[in-house]
């Protein structure tokens, strides 16, 4: 039986797509965005609204959604991996990355 999973990929240059239903690990998903199509086996279960990689993303590489940078990969991400706080960091508002000097 072929199951069709509902997913959305916002822009062709994105490296992630969003699950629009709960999808089990091991599922084969078909992702389409304009002229690009991907056949991906999900490595993890992906909950409704969560992201998965459509291509491999190297550690330190920008993660793209809406055709824009949403953060940076904090570890190697394979196609089909769940993409979330465990493997992506924000690049903005990072006071923790700045050496903190106490006010006089």
């Amino acid at each position, binding site marked *: 039986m072929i199951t069709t999973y*509902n997913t*959305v990929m916002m822009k062709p240059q994105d490296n992630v797509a*969003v699950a*629009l239903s709960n999808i089990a690990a091991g599922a084969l998903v078909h992702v389409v965005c304009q002229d690009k199509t991907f056949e991906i086996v999900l490595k993890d279960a992906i*909950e*409704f*609204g*969560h*992201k998965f990689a459509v291509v491999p993303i190297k550690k330190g590489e920008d*993660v793209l*959604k*809406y055709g*824009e*940078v*949403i*953060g940076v990969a904090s570890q190697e991400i394979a196609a089909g991996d769940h*993409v*979330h*706080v465990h493997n*992506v*960091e*924000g*690049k*903005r*508002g*990072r*006071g*923790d*990355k*700045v050496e*903190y000097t106490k006010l006089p």
Partner: protein
Amino acid sequence: MSTQNFPKFWGYRRPDGRVGVRNHVLILPTITCATQAAKQITELVQGTVSFIHQHGCAQVGVDYEQTFRTYVGMGTNPNVYGVVVLGLGCETHQARSVAGEIAKSGKPVEVVSIQDHGGTLGAIAQGARIAAKMAQDASALMREPIDFSELIVGTECGGSDACSGLSANPAVGVVSDMIVDRGGTAILAETTELIGAEHLLANRAVDERVAKRVYEVIEAMENRAIAMGVDIRTGNPSPGNRKGGLTTLEEKSLGAAAKAGTRPLQELIEYAQVPTKKGLVWMDTPGHDIEQLTGMVAGGAQIVLFTSGRGTPTGSPIAPVIKIATNTPMFESMTENMDLNAGTIVDGIESIESVGQRIFAEIGSVASGKLTKAEILKQYDFGIWRIGPTF
């Protein structure tokens, strides 16, 4: 329902020429010590509203001014017919000063002070007497047909999920454009939740000066997190946002920016400031839902569109808040809080444009008197964005 059903809406014309969609008598406590008495007055007199807060004393400088501007903005919002300004007497934010500013709008304003009226019960009695007269005068006012160009519509998203940027926010973007095209004003806010999307807005600024201000307010907001030595993600996106699939603030911001539609950005205004231009304007507020809502309402927004993925009860004592769900399961589980469902877009059964048309039609109905869910549940939220410590 097509928008043609609402070429105009039915509103209340105020003495200063502005137009209200509600006709409240506001009991305005200028100090936290007076909020309980203010609430008691609203329980005695029909047609009155108030709000609880923690502000009004031992504030200085820009923080004092921002709170003052917010109080005055709540009183002058055209949804308010008249105001009873209730003070304690000894506080920093003097009731008389606030009332003096509100009086410039030409609406009825009276001052009651707990210390001058022999304590709590005397002040409640005096405030209720004044409010009762105002409430009857207000009720004699008739609504009249008003053009959409006289509307200031606030836009907001709270309790976002990954659907916010796919369904409800783009639909609100359609509405923002519709309001702007009819000569009205749409407020974009939540500066925190535009970090990472600022270049998209700056590119739409009407001139270099506005574009520069976009980068300035973003930098100032981002620097607050940096000055605290923390990753902003520890507070935003919130745990609920993350559970909903939002990973970083930049991702949340790109979805939030969809509320701004596609029209040029006319100006960047201060928190609780009344827009000086028509069209799309950006108010500098934090992402905190209630502080943002309060800023926009104090800035004169008569109606607020509020999208939510996780679901929220948020409302204002004086402005109807139309709550729009980003996904169908939440709309169905929190039906007493949510007014409209944009989850139909994610379900693949309705277009973004069509949901935008539905929201616009609802604005016409609500502006003419239809109650929102938050109004029915008396969800009277209020919170001022504090920018300095208390002394």
